[in-house]
């Protein structure tokens, strides 16, 4: 525990040092450069981001696309868990066969097709993230369900539980901590691919801000948005960790 605390303090000192270094280097020593913006300009760019780049709307759009999609995918997987863990079901075979595609074709390529099929739809991003999270959760559930202690399943069966109850009240519960940890580990990846997706598709989202900022070579806007994304991911990660400790406190499987 103490070791962890020391580590976390060390990390904090390093991060603060980077900021200090940035302020000294780019605020005083080399203020005019094309590498990183001057700290004072970053502060001033906030108002431009708010008014010209519509930061609030775009941030809410990206944020809600990711987390609403995650919630929808999570409950969709819950709804069909009985079939995911039943190796004799048609759905299981169907899903297993689909695993061929993401293994060899990057997720982003699927995004390109979605942009081609639904270029003007406001929900293309939702579909993109929901499908990716849904599919990856199915694979995760399938793998984790094999690690669930057989005593849990035997006990539930002995009490007269049917397959559906075992799937939802035993397996789903047992693998809960692993699933939340998986979402915690992968949500930064979701931010990356959604920003890239928005960058390519246009419309709303933080990806669009990057596209516009690049077009106008607005380094301070890019830097400020990056900082904001980092802060948002940090706090949502913190919230997910809190939820994991509060509602998924048991050890995995």
């Amino acid at each position, binding site marked *: 525990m103490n070791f962890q605390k020391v580590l976390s303090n060390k990390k904090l000192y390093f991060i603060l040092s980077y900021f200090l270094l940035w302020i000294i280097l780019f605020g005083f020593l080399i203020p005019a450069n094309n590498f990183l913006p001057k700290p004072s300009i970053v502060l001033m760019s906030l108002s431009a981001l708010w008014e010209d780049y519509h930061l609030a709307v775009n941030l809410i759009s990206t944020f809600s696309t990711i987390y609403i999609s995650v919630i929808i995918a999570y409950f969709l997987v819950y709804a069909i868990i009985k079939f995911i863990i039943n190796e004799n079901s048609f759905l299981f075979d169907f899903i297993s066969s689909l695993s061929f595609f993401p293994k060899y074709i990057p997720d982003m390529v699927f995004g390109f097709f979605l942009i081609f099929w639904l270029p003007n739809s406001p929900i293309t991003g939702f579909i993109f993230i929901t499908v990716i999270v849904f599919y990856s959760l199915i694979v995760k559930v399938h793998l984790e369900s094999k690690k669930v202690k057989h*005593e849990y399943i035997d*006990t539930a*069966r*002995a*009490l*007269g539980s049917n397959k559906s*109850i075992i799937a939802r*009240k035993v397996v789903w*519960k047992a693998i809960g901590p692993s699933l939340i940890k998986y979402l915690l580990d992968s949500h930064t990846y979701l931010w990356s691919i959604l920003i890239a997706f928005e960058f390519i598709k246009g419309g709303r989202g933080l990806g669009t801000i990057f596209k516009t900022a690049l077009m106008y070579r607005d380094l301070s806007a890019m830097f400020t948005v990056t900082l904001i994304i980092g802060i948002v991911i940090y706090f949502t990660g913190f919230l997910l960790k809190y939820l994991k400790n509060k509602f998924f*406190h048991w050890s995995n499987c």
Partner: protein
Amino acid sequence: MTEKFPLLVVKDINKFFLGLAGSKIHVLENVNFQVEHQSSGEIISILAPFGAGKTTLLRIINGLEKSSSGQILLNGNTYNEPSGEIGFIPENPSSFPWYTVKQNLEFALSLKKKKIKNDNYSLKNIIDLLELTGYEDHFPLDKHSGFRFRIALGRALILKPAIVLIDDPFKKFDSETQHELYALIKKISFNLKTSFLLTTTNITEAIILSDSILIMRRDPGKIIQRIDIEKNADKENMETFTYYQNEIKSAFTSLGDSPLISIIN
């Protein structure tokens, strides 16, 4: 009505597993015994060495596994699937860590097909009986393994089972906890008039706890002798204890040398 038939009949149970290279491994051979209805509940131990097929036998009795041949009758009826009528506690007592004590028991209650009209089996009474009062909202992982065993026992009992099967339950506990749990099982058996069938590799445990001991050999597993312990036998008395201990030892010795030595303590 149901007492016309024995509580449990295990008849000519055989079990084969498929070994390497397609060979058949005979795990259980013509296992036969029965458990009668008793006015105060009965505790029966299956005493056998490791690898004799005790767990497999309990799983077959419960309906978790199919036998290769033979028949199991509960109150004169056959069954194919577990239904909660036979309580089962596996070797590693498995209280669900995501539920509190109360929720663990409620989980079992939610599966109940018929309403149980007996106050002895109310949530409150079972919690009291298992000495879990005051811990209803605690999670199992916060507590020691003896506590988790009580939860698993409560969850099995709350469905008013005809018999409770317990697979080698006490070997992981320290001596003090073991004796606490022996007393608890005896108390429950007496108060709820519930019969228990448990497996063990420990002679002392079998004598202290049981009304009847089924001696099982291995390779393949088979019940070779039943030793009924006298109703009013004073098991604390060294002479009585040694008498039963010798009887058990001689049953094993009659099988020849053996792996069975591992259970003699």
